[in-house]
C-alpha cells in the first residue's frame, strides 16, 4: 500500500541515519501490521525517536526545509485557501502566500498526492516545509478555531 514513487521508506531512512536500530524498525513494523497507522507515528509512540528527529531527518534527506510552527503567525486570508478538513486529512497547514506560490507546512513532504490536491484546490504553486505532526495539529486547532 505504500506509494511506489517514494524512493526510500521513512523507516529505512531512519535506520540509515542511525536514528533507530533495524530491530526497532522491525518492532515498529510489527506494531503497524497489527494495529495499522503510520510508521513515523508508531516509532514516536514506541519512544524510538522524537517527531523533531524524524522531521529533521526527512528535511536532510530530501532537502525540504524544516520549520517549527511555535512562533509562526498565519493570516486569515491564507487559511481560507485550504479547508480545515483537507489540512486535517493530510496533516498540513498553509503558512503564507507570495504571488502565485502558497507555502505549506506538512508532516509528510513525500505525499505527492497531497501537494497535487493543494495545487488543484488553490491553483497555486506549492512550496513545502516540513514540520512535526503535533505542531501542525496544534496550529490547525489554534488558527482554524480562531477563524470559525
Amino acid at each position, binding site marked *: 500500500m505504500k*506509494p511506489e514513487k517514494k524512493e526510500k521508506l521513512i523507516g529505512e531512512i531512519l535506520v540509515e541515519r542511525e536514528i533507530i536500530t533495524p530491530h526497532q524498525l522491525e518492532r515498529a513494523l510489527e506494531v503497524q501490521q497489527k494495529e495499522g497507522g503510520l510508521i513515523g507515528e508508531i516509532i514516536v509512540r514506541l519512544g524510538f525517536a522524537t517527531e523533531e528527529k524524524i522531521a529533521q531527518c526527512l528535511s536532510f534527506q530530501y532537502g525540504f526545509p524544516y520549520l517549527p510552527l511555535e512562533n509562526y503567525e498565519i493570516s486569515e486570508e491564507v487559511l481560507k485557501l485550504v479547508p480545515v478538513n483537507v489540512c486535517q*486529512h493530510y496533516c498540513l497547514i498553509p503558512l503564507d502566500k507570495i504571488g502565485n506560490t502558497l507555502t505549506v507546512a506538512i508532516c509528510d513532504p513525500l505525499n505527492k*498526492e497531497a501537494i497535487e490536491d493543494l495545487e488543484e484546490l488553490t491553483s497555486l504553486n506549492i512550496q513545502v516545509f516540513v514540520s512535526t505532526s503535533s505542531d501542525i495539529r496544534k496550529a490547525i486547532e489554534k488558527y482554524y478555531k480562531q477563524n470559525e
Partner: protein
Amino acid sequence: MKKDSLSKINLKKRLWVAFSFATFAPLAILVYYLVNFKTLSWFAILVVGFVIFVGWWFIFNVFSSILKIQNKSFKTLESIGGSLKFKEIEIENEVERLDMVFNILSSKVKESVEELKKVSFKTEELNKAITQKVNIFSAILQAHALFSQGTSAQDILQFLVDRLREIINMKTIVAFFKKKSDVFDYFLCGINPARVDILLNKEDFKTILKERKEEIIDKAHSKERFTFHKDILGLKNILMFPIKSSKENVGVILAGNSKEDFSFSSEDCEIVELFTHYMGILWEHNLLSERIQDLEIYDSLTGVYNEKFLLERLDEEIKRAVTYRRPCGFILFRIDNYYSLQKDLGLVETEKVFKKIVNEIKSNMRPIDIIGRIGEDKIGIILIEKNKRQSKEIASFLKEKISSLKENKLNISFIVVETPLDGESAFQLFNCAQKKLGTSSSS
C-alpha cells in the same frame, strides 16, 4: 282459486233474482190478477206457485254454492293444518263456520307473510354475510395476485388496510409494524398521517404497542384504560388487535369509528384477525426480503458490487485514506442514453452492452480498485490512493476505452470526486458526484 271466489259465482245477483222471484214477482202477479179480474183463477195460483218455486230454487243454488265454498275452504284449511284449531270450536251455523274458516285462513296467511318477512330478512343477512366473505376472499386473492406480480409488501399492506376499511365499514384503520426496537412503520386509511405521528409519541399508546394485545372500546366494552383514541384520533369506538408473524407479535392494527351506541360484532373481530394474520405473514416476508437485500453484495446482471456494498467499501477506503493521510478517488460513470438504448434495443440487449462496458473497465483498471453498479445506468469506481488529478487521468483513459467499443451509440459522462477535497465520507462524496453529474451532461 278464482273459480271458488264469490264474484265468480255472482252470489249477489243470484240472491237478488231469488229474492225477486220469491217475493216481488208473486206479489206483482197477485196484484195484477186482483186488479184486472177481481178474483184468483187456478192458472194464476199455478203461475204464482211456479214463480215462488223458481225463487226458492235460486236460493237453494246460492246456499249450495256457499256450502261448496265452505267445504273447499275447510279442505284447504285441512291441507295447511289449521283444522285442529277449527275442530276445537263447535259451530253449527254454516255462515259462522265459513266466517271462522276465513278468519283462520286469513290469520294463517298473516302468519305466512310474517314468516316470509322473517325469511327474507334472514336471507338479506345471509346475503350480506356471503358478500362480506366474498369481499374478504377477493381481497386476499387480490393481495396474492399482487404478491405474485412482484408488488412490494408495502403496497400490498396498504391495499389490505384500504380493503379492510371497506369490508368492516370503519372510519379509520391504522396498521403499525415494528421495524426496530422503538421504531414503527405504519399504513393508514381515513386519517391524517400527522395525527398518527403524534399518537406514536404518546406514552400510553407506546405501552399499547409494547404490550401488543387485544383491546376493545365500544358500548359493550366501556372500560377505558386510555383516551388517545378520542383526543388524537377523534374516534369513539376502537378495536386493537395484535399482528402476528409466524414467531411473534410484530405489530398492532387499530380500527375505529365515531358511531353512537356501537358495538364491534364477533364477525368484525374475526375479519380483523384474519387480515392481521395475513398482514403478519407479509410483514415477515418484507423483513426477510430487506435482510436478503442487505446481505446481497453483487449486482445480479453484471456481477460487480451493487450500490449499497460499493458505498460501504467506499466508506472503508475513506477511513483508511484518513488513517494513512492518503487520497481516495471516486469516478462516477453514467451512460447518458441508457434509457433510450433500452427503448431501442430492449432491456436484455442494453444489459449486455452494460456488461461489456463493465468488463472493459475491469480489464483496464488496477486490481486493487473497486468497481460497482449504481442504480441502472451508472458505474462507480473507487480508486485507492488516487488524488483528483490521477483519478481524472484514469477516468479519461477508461472513457476512451469504452468509446472504442463497437457500441458506438454510447454517450458516456463521468465525474471525478476525491477525499478529502470533495467530502470526508462515502455519503458526502457520492452526493457530490451525483450533484455534479446532474449538472453536467457530458464530461
